[in-house]
């Protein structure tokens, strides 16, 4: 499987914050991550893949808790493996739910701030708790928290020192929809402030809502990276589906069927579904076809440019 990479324009200017070159990790005969190369700068990137694709292994390699079996992993220009000083610039939210149950949320975040050597640990902890919206429960023991609250406490602990790089493994697990939205806003704000955020998630809606940059891992290999809409445009072996509403769908369908760029047309209730292999060509002909047929176009919407559609295609092919 070949990765379809869409280089971001600004990556050529700024040095990458995260950089993997032919990185691989295996456990005995099991290959968890295989020959993965990519680089990331500031912004939010979603790490996608089915269960067992190697997402957690990749995040652990970036966090310095696993050495690559082959290739190189660099964060901020150096290998994070066996270099504790790199944690001054990294915040990590592991997937496992555990936290120190006997500490209050505030004590936990303050503990993280102190271990980061922050002099203003108290105010930094309060600010981080406020950022994740945990003020009301800050003085309660973490053991009494719901799953979503524990996740937020973990995120507060990871960002209390305002790291340059934030690695989050399934950070939205257990959060209710309102908490998810709030967390997405927070990650978006950090990205806008120049931080590099990489998070894994199996809920595509979340990834789509935060940003468009994705890394897709399938069976340990990088299947695609970049803007998922651009990746979709590169999938020329998969026809694009477009939904059209017009003043006369049947007449428009007759006209479109004569065009070589269109290879399937389906009349639906109050809409027309068109399949084309060449989206750019179709964009040019649709207006002409409308005029030729004497039909007024009311809506032309790509039906399968969602992240889910892209992901489904990459994983199944």
């Amino acid at each position: 499987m070949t990765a379809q990479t869409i280089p971001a324009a600004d990556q050529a200017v700024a040095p990458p914050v995260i950089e993997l070159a032919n990185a691989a990790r295996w456990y005995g005969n099991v290959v968890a991550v295989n020959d993965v190369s990519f680089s990331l700068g500031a912004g939010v990137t979603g790490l996608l893949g089915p269960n067992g694709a190697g997402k957690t292994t990749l995040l652990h390699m970036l966090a310095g808790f696993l050495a690559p079996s082959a290739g190189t992993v660099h964060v901020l220009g150096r290998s994070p493996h066996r270099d504790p000083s790199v944690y001054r610039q990294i915040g990590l939210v592991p997937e496992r739910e555990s936290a120190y149950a006997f500490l209050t949320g505030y004590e936990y975040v303050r503990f993280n701030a102190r271990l980061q050597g922050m002099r203003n640990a108290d105010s930094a902890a309060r600010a981080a708790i406020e950022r994740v919206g945990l003020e009301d429960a800050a003085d309660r023991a973490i053991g009494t928290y719901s799953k979503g609250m524990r996740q937020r406490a973990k995120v507060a602990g990871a960002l209390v020192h305002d790291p340059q790089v934030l690695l989050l493994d399934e950070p939205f697990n257990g959060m209710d929809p309102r908490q998810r939205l709030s967390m997405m806003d927070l990650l978006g704000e950090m990205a806008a402030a120049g931080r590099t955020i990489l998070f894994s998630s199996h809920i595509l809606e979340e990834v789509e809502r935060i940003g468009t940059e994705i890394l897709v891992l399938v069976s340990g290999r990088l299947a695609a990276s970049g803007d998922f809409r651009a990746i979709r445009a590169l999938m020329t072996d998969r026809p694009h589906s477009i939904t059209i509403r017009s003043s006369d769908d049947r007449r428009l369908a007759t006209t479109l069927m004569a065009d070589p760029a269109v290879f399937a047309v389906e009349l639906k209730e109050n809409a027309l579904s068109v399949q084309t292999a060449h989206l750019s060509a179709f964009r040019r002909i649709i207006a002409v076809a409308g005029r030729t047929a004497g039909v007024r176009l009311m809506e032309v919407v790509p039906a399968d440019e969602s992240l889910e559609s892209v992901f489904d295609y990459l994983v199944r092919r």
Partner: protein
Amino acid sequence: MTGPLVAFPEIVRLTLRQQLGRRRTLLLVLLAALPPLLALVYRAFGEVDVSGFTDSVFEPVSLTIVLPLATVLFGTGAFGAENDEGTILYLLAKPISRWVIVAAKAFAAVALSLVLTVASVLVAGAIEVVPAGSDGVSATEAYVGAMVVGSLCYVTLFLTLSLFTRRALVLGIGYSLVWEGALSSLLPGIANLSVRQYALGAADSFYQLHTEAARLSPTTALTLSAILIVVALALATWRLMRFELSGSTD
């Protein structure tokens, strides 16, 4: 990197709270109450007998049961709780030298063990043998010394063991029962590799123990103790520096 003066007390405090919140600590407190209770029984039913109490309570109960159990639970629990609950990542994902983490964990575990074992010996001694005069004071001092040396050695040994295997608790109890208990009576050379003998050797410098119990001179015992502590802490630091998460294909 975060300085040791900042990180050390934070990790000590965390470890103390972690250990004190566990049910096993309550069981240890009850166990440590055994020597003082036996002292009360001796006091109620007999004369003050320094050597009799030393031979039947300090050595077989305080030194052979309370000390190894307290140290194996606190020693393996210092990192064991972090490993079991998956919280060790929160410690390791920090800009802290690994030796600081090991030293802080060991300090907390030794402190807990000392409080429990020394208090147990002091209270039992105060009840039964100290009233006998200087001989009783020396005997109590001897076993306080044994608890100090034993706590330092056992805790560092078991803490290090817990970084190499998840079965450290079972191995630690096995070491105490089989190696130091059964095998050492058959093979005298084992004394050189027995923390109990290091503790008895240290105790010998305060109080003349009967020769069968202490097989090492105080100097030898203290030298071997120092070597064990340094080697164990160095190994634990080395291990933590090479910490990797266990295999996962996700």
